[in-house]
């Protein structure tokens, strides 16, 4: 049987050992896999739609766009446990006195790349939901690493730098970036508002992928075990404890945001 061909975006050098590790894990199983790396999510989604790959390891935005392009026909096979609980954190200098998003009226808000769910699209939705129109804020935008959908975290770091340099009052960061930064100790910046949880990445397939084949692949994926040192190495690098079945409801906020912000399905 042909291996399942998975597409992933090479946003760090670690992507190679991660996918080689996953490929090796599937070796000898009922359905083996191989992978292809793309330089950006646009290229990956186009390749999925063209049938060049069977599965795309998609960001939330790449998934939403694939849904749009397939009229909702695409399927999600699996995600990381960590993908279910992603959040955005608005941070400001200590003592800034912001208690919630409405307090940001009139402030300079640093946001990340236009294709980053956590650093731009959802933060803008959260601000709008809090009743703040774009005119109520001075947005400071960092469109760094566009195409990677925020995976590199670069635009979030740029936004935080702007706060430190007093070019912005508040920055929107993904929770993982924020957690990483605070491991250095007291950084003089505090979380002023943390968003509800939303979904991040998933394995997206076209309806043409044979269901039995897909199911065999997924059930083997779900057997990766944190307590097995070899598996754990891969899981740690990819930032999860276990693979889980999808929970698509948790993408609702991003679907709404994409609609409200009129972000097109093609780019």
């Amino acid at each position, binding site marked *: 049987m042909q291996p399942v061909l998975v597409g992933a975006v090479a946003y760090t050098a670690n992507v190679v050992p991660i996918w080689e590790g996953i490929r090796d894990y599937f070796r000898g199983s009922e359905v083996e896999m191989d992978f292809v790396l793309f330089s950006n999510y646009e290229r990956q989604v186009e390749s999925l739609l063209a049938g060049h790959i069977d599965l795309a390891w998609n960001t939330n935005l790449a998934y939403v766009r694939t849904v749009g392009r397939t009229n909702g026909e695409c399927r999600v096979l699996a995600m990381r446990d960590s993908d279910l609980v992603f959040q955005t954190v608005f941070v400001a200098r200590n003592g800034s006195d912001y208690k919630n998003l409405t307090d940001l009226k009139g402030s300079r808000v640093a946001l990340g790349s236009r294709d980053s769910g956590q650093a731009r699209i959802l933060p803008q939705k959260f601000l709008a939901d809090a009743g703040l129109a774009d005119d109520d804020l001075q947005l400071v935008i960092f469109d760094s690493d566009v195409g990677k959908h925020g995976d590199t975290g*670069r635009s979030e770091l740029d936004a935080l730098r702007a706060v430190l340099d007093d070019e912005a009052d508040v920055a929107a960061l993904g929770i993982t970036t924020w957690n990483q930064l605070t491991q*250095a100790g007291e*950084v003089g910046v505090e979380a002023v508002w943390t968003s509800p949880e939303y979904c991040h990445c998933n394995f997206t397939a076209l309806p043409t992928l044979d269901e039995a084949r897909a199911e065999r692949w997924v059930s083997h994926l779900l057997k990766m075990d944190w307590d097995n040192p070899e598996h754990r190495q891969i899981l740690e690098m990819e930032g999860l404890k276990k693979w889980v079945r999808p929970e698509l409801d948790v993408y609702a906020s991003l679907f709404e945001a994409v609609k409200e912000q009129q972000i097109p399905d093609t780019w």
Partner: protein
Amino acid sequence: MIISDSDRARLAIRLVEAVNAAATGTTVLVPLHHPDEVDVVDQWCKRTDNSVLAIHDEAVEVYRGRLSDPSSSLPADRMPGSRLWMYTNFHCNLACDYCCVSSSPQTDPRSLSVDTVHRAVKEGIAAGVKELYLTGGEPFMHPDLAEIIVVCTAAAPTVMLTNGMLFRGSRLAVLDAMPRDNLVLQISLDSPTPDLHDLHRGVGSWQRAVDGITTARSMGFNVRLAATLAAGEPHQEAALNALCEQLDLRPEDTVVRRIAKQGVATRGVVISRGTVVPEVCLTSTGVYWHPVSATDPDMRVTTDIFPLEKAIDAIRSEFLDYRRKGDMLAAAFPCA
């Protein structure tokens, strides 16, 4: 200087940026703007499962991921700090042409006092030392050897290296008074016949060493043979085994060593801190990386013998550092 919160934030940004871009198993240099920032990097690495590999003048080298335990490939009895070597003295009745510490009858004795041995053994055991090794020079030229042996054997299994040639008169009485338990005499014998041994160690020395072994065995001591070989010299294993049998020794009680390019030896294995697993070695002038290099200034770890634990820790951590870097290179430089 205390690092301000915003400097710490900027450093955190540099760390996240640099480390996230690196592949697991590779290293990145994170620039430092102040030496005190090292502590922040260290803390961040510990909390994020990354590792500080080396500290340079204006940057820290961070390894992405956890380093494998660099000591895991060593058996416990070879872990630095499990053996403690002591040079009781440096003078010797012989002047072998390969002596790694240039001993001879004229050599300044530089003896360890009984008190020093006592304290070193006590502190060593407290720091995890499991075996004691006494060497020289020729330990039987130390006037207080009897007491030293009592101190050592009471504390841990002890091996004493000797040329076995001085077991006469009062020294024979000193030998006889030594405990048989917890003590092994390691006597040098380079070859099964006198030729090679006498070539390096002096005419007639082979026979006297063999006599010494016979004496020690007849007194009930555990004896081990040690052959030191130059590059290209054959280890005449079968003949040496046959001799062992004659001398009432087990063939497995033979140690074969190569000559090191140290002391008066002009040729031999080149020794350095980065290439030799350390065995903590105490002399009256300081603590050395390894007993084969106990007069080499580059191999002296400290002139402060005490507290011994500090010296042992220093050797251990320097060794683990070398190991890590070795592991690192191996991981990052696949040839095929």
